[in-house]
């Protein structure tokens, strides 16, 4: 499998960017046989269900995709698998990355109708998305647009009953400067005995203007705790998160570390609270739902969401450490680079 190239959403050729949206639309219009939901919806359901997973032998539900050190690894596996699903409908397509420092407040190709449309900063009212997904479909659909299709949110994946995508947030804490992003990519120090990854991960997921902020400033479904992948911007945002991680990894390896050494060893306790991370976040842990069908996992989500989960029985077991090298992920996932 060739190494795919993920490109800058602001500067990549328009046709390639449109191909990403085309692939999302085609997956969204592809109904799972015998069901009433789409293949795209299944990916949204996975993100919802990872919020509360009980691993074999555990007594409580844990968020296996967020708020702990497995955040980046889980999302790397998740968006790569989604990317391969996109390629099943549009061969060769890859997920663009959102170069965060490009300000939505200034005119740009990225925030035009042809690409990701607008983000309504400081808006007191959420507004319907325009451009390609205006009210679910563009005013002049391209030739590839599925007949009669409109991008609407599957009822089980709605919170609050909104069937269409909207954006808008009074939170305008954006964008980060390029210097700030570069600074994160160069985090190299930690207190004695603390793996450098801890601080890097926390900054990338929860810093002043990074992953969490990006979700919140877009608003609407993008800021919904469980169903944010309903908004296709999710993938573009997370490609940037993954890119920053990959660049940080490259910087640390260039300085003499190994990919394995820049993730806390399984027994290293959290520097926040002295506790070893829960099962699912440690370096050698299996990532749900890619458990190879292992029994003993349970999910704490509404039945209507759980029933949408695709089966991963027969898919090789995937561990956190399996995704450290994004150019060679193994498990049939190939690899990718950022250009």
């Amino acid at each position: 499998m060739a190494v795919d190239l993920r490109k800058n959403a602001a500067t990549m050729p328009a046709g390639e960017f449109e191909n990403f949206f085309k692939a999302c639309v085609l997956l969204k219009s592809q109904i799972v046989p015998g069901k009433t939901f789409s293949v795209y919806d299944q990916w949204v359901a996975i993100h919802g269900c990872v919020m509360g997973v009980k691993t074999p032998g555990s007594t409580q539900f844990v968020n296996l995709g967020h708020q702990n050190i497995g955040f980046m690894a889980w999302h790397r596996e998740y968006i790569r698998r989604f990317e391969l699903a996109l390629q099943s409908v549009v061969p060769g397509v890859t997920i663009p990355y959102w170069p965060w420092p490009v300000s939505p407040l200034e005119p740009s190709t990225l925030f035009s109708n042809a690409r990701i449309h607008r983000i309504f900063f400081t808006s007191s009212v959420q507004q319907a998305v325009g451009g390609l997904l205006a009210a679910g479909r563009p005013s002049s659909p391209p030739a590839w647009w599925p007949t009669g299709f409109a991008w609407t949110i599957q009822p089980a994946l709605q919170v609050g009953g909104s069937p269409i995508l909207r954006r808008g947030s009074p939170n305008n804490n954006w964008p980060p400067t390029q210097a700030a992003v570069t600074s994160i990519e160069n985090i190299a120090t930690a207190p004695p005995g603390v793996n450098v990854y801890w601080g890097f991960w926390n900054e990338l997921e929860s810093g002043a203007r990074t992953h969490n902020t990006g979700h919140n400033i877009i608003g609407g479904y993008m800021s919904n705790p469980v169903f944010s992948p309903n908004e296709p911007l999710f993938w573009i945002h997370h490609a940037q998160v993954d890119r920053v991680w990959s660049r940080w990894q490259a910087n640390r390896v260039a300085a003499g570390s190994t990919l394995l050494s820049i993730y806390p060893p399984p027994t290293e306790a959290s520097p926040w609270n002295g506790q070893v991370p829960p099962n699912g976040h440690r370096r050698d842990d299996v990532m749900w739902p890619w458990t190879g069908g292992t029994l003993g996992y349970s999910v704490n989500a509404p039945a209507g969401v759980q029933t949408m989960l695709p089966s991963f029985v027969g898919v090789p077991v995937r561990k956190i450490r399996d995704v450290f090298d994004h150019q060679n992920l193994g498990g049939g996932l190939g690899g990718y680079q950022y250009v």
Partner: protein
Amino acid sequence: MVIKRTNKPEAKKAIAPKADFAEYVLTKGSSRLMDARIARKEIRLYVNGPAMLFGSARILTSLDMPGGATHQAWKKLAASLTCTSLCGHNGKTKIPLEVATSRIGTHIEFSTGPMAMYQSTVVIKPKKDVTLKQAIDEAFGNPGQSYLVVIVPEPASGHLEHDASIFEPNVEPGSPHDDHNHGGVLGNRHGS
């Protein structure tokens, strides 16, 4: 300690300088003491996981009662400030600054905002066009001594993932983000 203070860029033709602000990130391992008595007109708390990771915060002082930290002074301080959550998930929410009392004294307590998994901004600022330091000093009677006033964040008391209440509707996406008051301290605590 992660403290960043930033000046807003001034408008080119501004008659008076724009208000400036201090920003603090509330995340795992971030500072547990944040300076509130600052010569800035606004504090922005970037709260990761309001009501999920962080639940509330207290405003405390190193002043004692004889030094000016009376119950009446705390009430005056609370009345002189506004607190607002800005969130893509929940919109704009006024947060009450509650004067909390116990047998040992008084402090101010406030919620870090309605539940969200990502990051919202809580803005605290004086109602009058003065700095936080001026508002605090005035409330405490301009104490003739050096003293601290700090914001102390508190963790949320539960994990919303555990009982799947994270899936429950909060604010209808797309509904007007009118100011609505459901940001009380107790209203956002979630027992597990």
